[in-house]
């Protein structure tokens, strides 16, 4: 493999030298708009068959050096393309006319079939390369936020963590709610995209879309829901994100481009801390070292000498920036070199991208390299070959875990008088009196030695949480054109991911004093082989049929190995053989196969109406013989009404009504049918011990079914000056395959069943236009809004809700009559008169029952993109927001309990007699409690920390200057631009305190609706440089 690649690279480099330079001349001219007669800036002028090209300036002028016999190609979006032979001329003026045909947007749809958007009976949103690539993030998901109606991206936090992408709401309880990622027509493995959610230690991995190099993306097509995705089958029930990667252009000669994107990252905001009271308890500093804890319930920070956690006497003064100073400036540096070359009958493209990101968290970083080679060759006039190979390798050091034991738990709660620099000196030998420590390996933190309170620097520098991903993605596709109306392709694609994870808690760790480690490898593979016949034939004068018939074989495998050990024998090194107790586990190769046959038939009548029918049958190895074959159809229709109401296209260039209906089936994972008995890890006293399963499996499982109905309207007015789209949909999932929690007394903890019904109904609106278009200035604006209502109609007889996650008084549920992600929690306990209760000591009491406090899914999301061009300057910015929906900020609750939040300043000093009824006596409360006691109890009541998710922020910002053509020419470049870019610059509105409501503790369903010591949201500001040779 390596050798072949090497030879290919060699050939490419050799071919660069074969450029023959003929006798050249300079050609100049002016291009004007055929309608207005005004000069047209930004028209691309290319010497045909080469990469030699320029663009017109703001006076419509261009100047290009080309051979006398060259053909110049003039093109601009929205205008017709013209090719003109120079025939020796040195001046060439041209009038370009708006091409109504050119307004017909072409989008990529299911199976990679390119369609005119006007012919589609369902909603598709396509984003071009620059829309995801200007304000760059190595995780493409971050660049989709706010740009597509109906698409919700929930971030986790920290470098290398993934995102949750849902389109049109959560469809099922099984967790498979995220969109399928398809790259160049082939679904990729997305293991790792549903991760985290653990309350204690939530590791949020990446996977799927995070492994795609943004620089290679030509376009991203979002197929919303089953209607658009019917042909992708089982895995597309939650929509598809279809990524088309770049390839070279035939006949364009050599092109080299370099893109460099560097940004500085910092926390966008931090919680509000108090700076008046220091470390201590009950209004006094801690009196002795044994008594030290992590809370800030001491006395006023008055500068007096007090006992410090090191055992020294230190001035007791506020350190207002100690949390802020913990975070460093991160740097994200993404550099891409790409080369392409196109000859008569081939094109090649190679790109290399390097991403080096250092986190805002000390000693946490990510490095990745992405190599991509794409070649398209015409083997004969009928046969062509398209191949791609991508190798991606990523090293992630010190991933940040979230949750109550994550490193940030110990940062945010840092006592207000602790100096951050002191924590960097955790090896006791650095202290004045080493005798006070038991040994030199302790992770001494601000509560002193051996207090089970982590020292963030120790955790980041001594512990290890590393991951190395290696991924190969590639395909080969053979196209054959039988006749001018019949063609076919056969394709084989592969996706192999190897993941190595090292998780080490070093000797001296605050919870696992003797240390432990876990080393695991995972290998996921996915092979897809498919074929497709395409017939495109005019059946009559006006009736055209495009038929596609194909089939695919999909084979996925999963395998994991893990070794773990604990108790390092010698404390100085952490490796497996140095552990006292070891164990290993292996999940043998699991194989899942799906065979499919499918077809689509698209009729178009006179460019007036379109009817699409699709059908697919899958055979899945995960279901029993009786249920493994399942069929699902779809139908969609669109009608171009503008032909009736505005035949001359005076106002409407397009007015389309559309409707569609689709059904998709969904299978399950491996080994879900038959009961077996496992061997537990340890045995007991050398005896074999067997266990029965806690899940009652079900040989009669049938596929899930998702049915979707959608209607919509699209319009385009005044030659693209105003356009918009409206969609209404209803998606209903039934027969969900779910592990239904049952009472333990049944003998199981869950039953695997086909249950329930989930409904998502929503509306999506997109409207855009060009309010201003003058000679030098153009303003494009587009906005999208979407609302989704998620409802759980039915679970199973006798069960009203199921719990997705819980923490103290909080539970995240899916409830019949409510939705998936309903937030339930405790409220302040009251008596029958509704009066608040305190206990015998005067402490606030939480009620035993849990009440519904919100839902983790936003009601509305929206985005507003503005794109302003003035001469060579371009300003693009995106404001996006979510409206409604709730989130529980466990972070805030812990800040209050620890006495570090600004809120916790209340009732300090004098204490409080809570205005409530004493539960024991039934009389009004008279007992006074301290602020510490008050906030200790108050923070345990869930309802106090439910925040509205509503927030609006300046998400992306890019100011770009494109150097004029004559300047770039003069220094030997084809094009060059430089831009100032920013992400997450500021909030225009935010309701939640302390946290970013877009960010939760995991990317699975269980991680929704809870924020718990998440890493701060990152604000980044940087520079983007593009150079093309």
């Amino acid at each position, binding site marked *: 493999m390596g050798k072949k690649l090497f030879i290919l690279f060699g050939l490419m480099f050799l071919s660069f030298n074969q450029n023959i330079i003929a006798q050249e001349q300079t050609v100049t001219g002016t291009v004007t708009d055929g309608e207005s007669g005004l000069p047209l800036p930004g028209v691309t002028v290319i010497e045909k068959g080469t990469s030699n090209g320029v663009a017109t300036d703001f006076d419509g002028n261009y100047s290009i050096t080309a051979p006398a016999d060259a053909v110049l190609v003039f093109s601009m979006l929205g205008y017709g393309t013209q090719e003109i032979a120079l025939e020796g001329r040195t001046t060439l003026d041209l009038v370009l006319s708006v091409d109504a045909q050119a307004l017909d947007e072409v989008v990529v749809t299911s199976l990679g079939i390119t369609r005119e958007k006007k012919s589609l009976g369902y909603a598709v949103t396509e984003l071009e390369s620059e829309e995801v690539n200007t304000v760059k993030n190595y995780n493409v998901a971050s660049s989709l936020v706010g740009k597509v109606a109906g698409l919700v991206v929930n971030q986790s936090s920290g470098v290398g963590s993934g995102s949750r992408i849902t389109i049109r709401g959560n469809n099922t309880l099984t967790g498979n709610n995220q969109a399928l990622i398809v790259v160049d027509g082939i679904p990729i493995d997305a293991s790792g995209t549903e991760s985290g959610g653990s309350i204690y230690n939530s590791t949020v991995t990446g996977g799927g879309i995070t492994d795609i190099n943004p620089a290679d993306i030509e376009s991203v097509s979002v197929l919303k829901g089953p209607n658009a995705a019917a042909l992708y089958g089982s895995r597309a029930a939650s929509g598809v994100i279809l990524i088309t990667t770049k390839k070279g252009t035939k006949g364009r000669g050599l092109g080299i481009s370099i893109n460099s994107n560097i940004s500085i990252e910092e926390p966008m905001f931090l919680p509000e801390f108090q700076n008046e009271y220091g470390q201590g308890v009950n209004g006094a500093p801690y009196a002795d070292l044994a008594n030290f804890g992590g809370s800030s319930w001491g006395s006023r920070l008055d500068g007096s000498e007090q006992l410090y956690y090191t055992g020294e006497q230190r001035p007791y003064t506020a350190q207002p920036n100690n949390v802020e100073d913990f975070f460093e400036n991160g740097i994200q540096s993404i550099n891409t070199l790409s080369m392409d070359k196109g000859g008569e009958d081939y094109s090649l493209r190679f790109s290399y991208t390097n991403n080096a990101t250092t986190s805002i968290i000390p000693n946490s970083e990510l490095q990745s390299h992405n190599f991509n080679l794409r070649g398209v060759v015409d083997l004969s006039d009928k046969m062509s070959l398209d191949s791609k190979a991508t190798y991606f390798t990523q090293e992630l050091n010190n991933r940040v875990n979230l949750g109550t034991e994550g490193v940030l738990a110990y940062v945010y709660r840092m006592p207000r008088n602790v100096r951050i620099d002191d924590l960097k000196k955790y090896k006791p030998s650095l202290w004045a009196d080493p005798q006070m420590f*038991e040994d030199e390996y302790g992770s001494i933190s601000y509560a002193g030695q051996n207090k089970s309170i982590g020292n963030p620097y120790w955790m980041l520098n001594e512990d290890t949480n590393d991951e190395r991903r290696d991924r190969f993605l590639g395909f080969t596709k053979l196209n054959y054109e039988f006749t001018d109306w019949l063609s076919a392709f056969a394709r084989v694609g592969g996706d192999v991911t190897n993941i190595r994870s090292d998780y080490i808690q070093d000797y001296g760790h605050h919870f696992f004093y003797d240390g432990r480690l876990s080393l695991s490898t995972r290998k996921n593979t996915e092979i897809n082989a498919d074929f497709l016949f395409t017939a495109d034939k005019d059946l009559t004068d006006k009736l055209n049929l495009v038929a596609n018939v194909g089939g695919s074989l999909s084979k996925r495998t999963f395998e994991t190995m893990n070794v773990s050990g604990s108790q390092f024998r010698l404390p100085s090194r952490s490796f497996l053989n140095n552990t006292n107790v070891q164990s290993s586990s292996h999940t043998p190769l699991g194989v899942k196969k799906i065979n499919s046959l499918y077809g689509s038939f698209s009729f178009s009548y006179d460019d007036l109406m379109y009817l699409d029918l699709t059908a697919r049958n899958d055979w899945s*190895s995960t279901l029993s013989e009786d249920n*493994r074959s399942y069929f699902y159809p779809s139908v969609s229709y669109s009608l171009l009404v503008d032909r009736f109401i505005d035949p001359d296209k005076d106002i409407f260039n397009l007015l389309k009504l559309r409707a569609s209906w689709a059904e998709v089936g969904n299978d399950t994972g491996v080994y879900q049918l*038959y009961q*077996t*008995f496992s061997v537990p890890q340890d045995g007991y006293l050398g*005896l074999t011990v067997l266990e029965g399963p806690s899940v009652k499996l079900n040989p009669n499982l049938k596929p899930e079914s998702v049915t979707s109905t959608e209607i919509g309207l699209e319009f385009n007015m005044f030659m693209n000056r105003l356009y918009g789209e409206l969609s209404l949909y209803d998606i209903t999932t039934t027969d969900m395959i779910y592990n239904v929690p049952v009472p333990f007394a049944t003998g199981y903890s869950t039953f695997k069943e086909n249950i329930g019904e989930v409904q998502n109904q929503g509306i999506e609106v997109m409207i855009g236009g060009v309010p201003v278009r003058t000679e030098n200035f153009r303003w494009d604006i587009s906005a999208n809004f979407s609302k989704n209502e998620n409802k759980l109609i039915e679970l199973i007889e006798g069960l009203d809700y199921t719990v997705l996650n819980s923490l103290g008084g909080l539970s995240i549920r899916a409830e019949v009559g409510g939705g998936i992600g309903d937030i339930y929690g405790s409220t302040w306990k009251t008596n029958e008169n509704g009066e608040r209760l305190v206990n015998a000591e005067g402490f606030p009491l939480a009620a035993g029952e849990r009440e519904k406090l919100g839902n983790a899914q936003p009601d509305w999301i929206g985005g507003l993109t503005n794109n302003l061009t003035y001469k060579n300057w371009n300003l693009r910015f995106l404001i996006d927001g979510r409206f409604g929906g709730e989130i529980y900020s466990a972070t805030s609750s812990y800040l209050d309990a620890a006495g570090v939040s600004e809120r916790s300043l209340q009732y300090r000093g004098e204490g409080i007699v809570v205005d409530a009824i004493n539960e024991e006596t039934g009389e009004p409360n008279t007992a006074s409690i301290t602020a510490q006691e008050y906030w200790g109890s108050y923070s345990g009541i869930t309802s106090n920390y439910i925040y509205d998710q509503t927030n609006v922020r300046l998400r992306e910002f890019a100011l770009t200057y494109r150097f004029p053509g004559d300047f770039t020419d003069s220094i030997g470049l084809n094009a060059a631009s430089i831009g100032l870019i920013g992400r997450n610059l500021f909030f225009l509105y935010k309701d939640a305190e302390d946290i970013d409501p877009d960010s939760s503790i995991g990317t699975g369903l269980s991680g929704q609706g809870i924020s718990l010591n998440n890493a701060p949201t990152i604000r980044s500001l940087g520079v983007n440089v593009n150079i093309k040779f």
Partner: protein
Amino acid sequence: MKGILKIFSATLLLIFSLSSCSDFEEINTKPDAFTSDEVSAKYFLTGIQIELYAPNRYPYWRAQLIHADRFAGMFTFGFNGCWWNDGLAYSYSGGYTDAAYDWMASYVSKLSVYQNFVKEGGDLENENFYAIGLIMKGLYYQMYTDTFGMVPYTEASNPDIITPKFDTQEEIYKGVIADLDRAMEIIGSQTETGTGVELLTGNDLFFNGDLQKWKKMANTLKLRMALRAQGATGAGFADAVINEALSSPLLTDEGDNALLPKDIEISQWANAAYGDVWHNFGGRGSKWKVGKTVVDYLRDNNDPRLPHYAEPIIGGEVTFTKPSEGSGVALFDKYVSFILGELDNAGVSYTREDSADQVKINVSDEQPYYVGQPTRLNGDIYPHVKYELFSAPAEWVVNPKNSGEPIFPEVVMTAAEGNFLQAEAIVKGLGSGDAQTYYQNGIAEAMKIWNVGQDEIDNFLANEDMALLNGTMEENLEKIAIQRWLASYTDGFEAWAIVRDTGYPKELANGVSDYDIYSAGTLNGEYPQRMRYGNQEYNTNGANLEAALQIQGPDEQGTELWWAPNN
């Protein structure tokens, strides 16, 4: 053209036929698991034995240590440097309660896998194994219902009933006693489970397959439950059951003890021991002290078990520092005199030195002192509850695994229990014989488990008033209760049940009231009578649970159970 089309199609057909659905069954068969025809019931018996008495570290910590042992007054948190103050769990905690409930409630699934194998018509049908299963079921339900109250019983273990109803404790007690009778009847005079693969030996960690000992344990459990039920509403059946039990063999001799040996060479997360928690945080955070009530009864009665149960205090120089300000200033003197009062009570010799903001004491090192830490101390007194001044559990109890050190076994049911129960029945007038003999035999058997020497035992029995049933009936019952409770050290679930059932030791059963020192919690000072149900039950079986609360009373820790004396 047609030729190419043919080749194209033929190739595709070939690919498809090569990968038809024929291997689907095979690839969807789990390779790393067994089917029921490959296994033997004895492997499951070992599993259900260890799961009930040595579950993994998570429930061992949260159910056994945080709730049962502490509610029983055996162990206490809340000294200076402990991870928790001792109010923990006296205020309901959802997370810890759920951990306890989930473990105990889900145990029934392991049990029913076993029972389904060995029952009539099961894959591994064997009546004797089934009888053992019935006895395990009895041990389990007694522990389970005595912890939570009403639980699903008659409709449990039936996967066709997705939401089983809750049964009253009366029904559960009756059902378990009937099961025990059935088990004893099956066993009859047999001593072995069978031959060949059906011969149970080492996989039975309690009795090495001796069916007659299983039968004695069944009878002892029957007696325990009948005595507990006796006097409760609707427990008229109890007297006859006690009578029956007394006329059959009980666990009475040293060889009868059902003790689960600890595996000291497995990981600290599996089949836990106290030491897994004790040594966990590397410092004081995860440690605990022995309760004052235990130490006082042992020390005040010259009980030779004291050094086997507890370590002497560390002592040395200890400083109480008065806070410079805040709520702790006013109560400083009260706190110090409370703590020093405990030293005085234990006869500790120390010197005291007072200054403006400090009280410094120096404990004499002339002799070992044992001081138990009072139960339920609150967060305010916490800084003054000095680690050095209270006794830790003995090393045998808290030794870590993988260190070569022995670890005290788990108590399932002892010969001491068989003797004490007979003494109790006789004192209550429900049986005949010499109560004091049984009582002293019980004490002797209890001491032997802890490796107390015979001469020390004889000395205690001969000289201590505590060894004599020489008072009124109530005083004698108190002594028996105290000794049963002491014998249940490290078996918190049973020890806690004894306190609730008998009202002894009074020091625990009476709860707390001085909230300067003690934590009121959500119990408002009352003694905990049960644990609350886990959220899983609310989430999956809410309607039946609510119906149970209508009978039993609100789902609070203070709600008394069916057999509680005041109920």
